[in-house]
């Protein structure tokens, strides 16, 4: 039941979703508990029916789409005064019960996926346990909604921002479901492509004297922070827009009330109500911060041995012995580093299930060379958090580690040192964007 520990945060998020829904949408607690509980149950048991890679893709796709919709809605909210109310009304019927049920299904599916080991099979017992916990939380949350403090009175968009933030937090508690890292990758790639386009179209001067200067600034765009901060901005923007929209929402007129004191009391109640609506975006921002934190520092333990220093012989051959320290045939990844002329080329050897070796750089051709760790039946790229199933290690492409040519010799694996250096240099050059920092 250790597996259940992995879904504690997601289950807490689910409980938060139910509480918010119980307060935020009009449906009675019975309907909410029943509907949402049933859909969470369905979602969490889906891994028994649907292959988990497919489910992961579906989960991420739908959640990302919902986030995109929230983006549009939040922009609609600030577009013109009174927008918040308008968007809220327009989305009302769709966003009410239907949205709650969809969110429940997604939350269940998320929790289910987290319980299925990457590339492994679903364990019915763990899924059942999570489903039961989820249904209990649904019931408890739906009925506990009325005990929430009075100031928690979310507006339409505020509620959905919070629900989505909680969903994203469920997602980010597993690298496989995480949406933040892929987002930072997209941002990074977009900026890189953009800058490249500029060079291609000669919009940026490429003159020997100007060049270093320009690169100082262009370099910022290639630093690893750009993707991260870009992702942060994209993540928080709708919440910021919604908070702004709530601020800008005009208060109902009180001019028809003759008595000053009564008029002011009503006005005060409107102002208080509007202020209370800010609680949801503020909470959403807090939850998103947690999601980003979980994405940056996944709580999964990866096998990641320190690289062993190796040297080449006069002919430029690096020989990794099969027997000895470390024992490369044990099915775990073993990292090595070869230093030459200021370059430190990292690579690893991994014996696969069929007994074949995979020898690859500790880097891929699209990410910064932050290396890989080994989890259950998959490697993870530390940079983009992509999982690489073990049986595809040694094959080129995407975020797979760049394969190195090698020979099996008696007693070990032989690699050509100049080839290794060239491959490393090319890879690092491609991913660090001309002169970017190196690890």
């Amino acid at each position, binding site marked *: 039941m250790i597996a259940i520990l992995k879904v504690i945060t997601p289950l807490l998020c689910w409980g938060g979703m139910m509480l918010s829904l119980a307060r935020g949408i009009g449906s009675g607690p019975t309907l909410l508990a029943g509907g949402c509980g049933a859909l969470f149950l369905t979602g969490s048991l889906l891994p028994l029916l649907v292959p988990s890679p497919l489910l992961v893709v579906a989960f991420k796709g739908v959640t990302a789409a919902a986030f995109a919709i929230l983006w549009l809605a939040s922009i609609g909210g600030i577009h013109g005064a009174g927008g918040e109310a308008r968007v809220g009304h327009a989305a009302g019927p769709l966003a009410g019960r239907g949205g709650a049920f969809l969110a429940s299904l997604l939350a269940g599916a998320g929790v289910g996926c987290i319980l299925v080991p990457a590339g492994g099979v679903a364990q019915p017992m763990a899924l059942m346990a999570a489903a039961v916990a989820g249904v209990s939380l649904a019931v408890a949350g739906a009925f506990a909604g009325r005990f929430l403090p009075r100031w928690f009175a979310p507006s339409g968009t505020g509620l959905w921002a919070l629900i989505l933030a909680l969903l994203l937090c469920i997602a980010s508690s597993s690298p496989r479901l995480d949406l933040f890292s892929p987002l930072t990758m997209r941002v990074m790639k977009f900026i890189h492509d953009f800058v490249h386009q500029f060079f291609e179209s000669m919009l940026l001067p490429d003159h020997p004297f100007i060049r270093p200067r320009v690169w100082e600034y262009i370099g910022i765009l290639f630093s690893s922070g750009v993707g991260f901060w870009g992702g942060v901005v994209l993540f928080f923007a709708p919440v910021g827009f919604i908070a702004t929209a709530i601020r800008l929402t005009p208060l109902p007129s009180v001019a028809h009330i003759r*008595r*000053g*004191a*009564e*008029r*002011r*009391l009503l*006005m*005060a109640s409107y*102002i208080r109500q509007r202020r209370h609506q800010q609680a949801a975006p503020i909470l959403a921002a807090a939850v998103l911060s947690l999601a980003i934190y979980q994405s940056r520092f996944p709580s999964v333990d990866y096998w990641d041995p320190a690289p062993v220093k190796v040297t080449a012989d006069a002919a430029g051959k690096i020989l990794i012995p099969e027997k000895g320290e470390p024992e490369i045939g044990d099915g775990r990844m073993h990292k090595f580093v070869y230093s030459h002329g200021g370059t430190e080329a990292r690579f690893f050897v991994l014996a696969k299930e069929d007994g074949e070796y995979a020898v690859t750089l500790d880097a891929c051709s699209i990410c910064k060379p932050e290396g890989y760790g080994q989890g259950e039946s998959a490697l993870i790229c530390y940079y983009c958090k992509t999982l690489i199933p073990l049986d595809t290690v040694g094959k080129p492409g995407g975020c797979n580690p760049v394969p190195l040519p090698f020979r099996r010799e008696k007693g070990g694996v032989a690699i050509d040192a100049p080839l290794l250096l060239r491959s490393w240099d090319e890879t690092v050059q491609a991913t660090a964007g001309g002169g970017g920092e190196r690890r």
Partner: protein
Amino acid sequence: MAECIIETRGVTRSYGEICALKPLDLQVRDGEWLAVMGHSGSGKSTLLNLLGGLDRPDGGSLVVGGVDLATLGEDGLARFRRERVGIIFQQHHLIPHLSAVENVMMAQYFHSVPDEAEAKVALQRVGLGHRLRNRPGELSGGEQQRVCIARAIINSPRILLADEPTGNLDHASTVVVLELLSELRAEERFTIVMVTHNQEVASRGERTIFLDDGILVREELSGR
């Protein structure tokens, strides 16, 4: 008899050994002007504080404006004070570094939201339209007391509690303040409970009760 806005039954209040209010039964009609007299230390201010929700009785029941004060928590009591009663003291308790209009707006702020235009109108009604921006230190005693009246009625209380409102004023100012209270009461129809040592001031009310050592000893209807 019109309905009661204040009804106390067996209300008591002691400070340690001193029993400031013996079990007291009192009924005040809605819209009545009641004067409270009695020598110093007889419990007049104690009674007023209880009626205004500034203090809680040791025993007995206290229903003011249809609300049983015993059932209110601290928040409820604060809200009761904000919305149901206006209070005027002998010492004006105005904020010295705020102007007259700001002092009135302060009361609006604690009640709901400030509204400067309304605060100005209130000061004009008490005849201080020309002294809006002056601080309490720049106003005469009578003017200060009129600012207090404007502040006390700004939130349309049902009951105005006044503890020796004219105690510090000379005869001319006293007349102005009492005239003003009469006028406002006629317009707004609030109930007044007013403590005073002055027989003439008390005769402005419709009824006067006399306290002695925390006991209601006598009551008198005014001839007017």
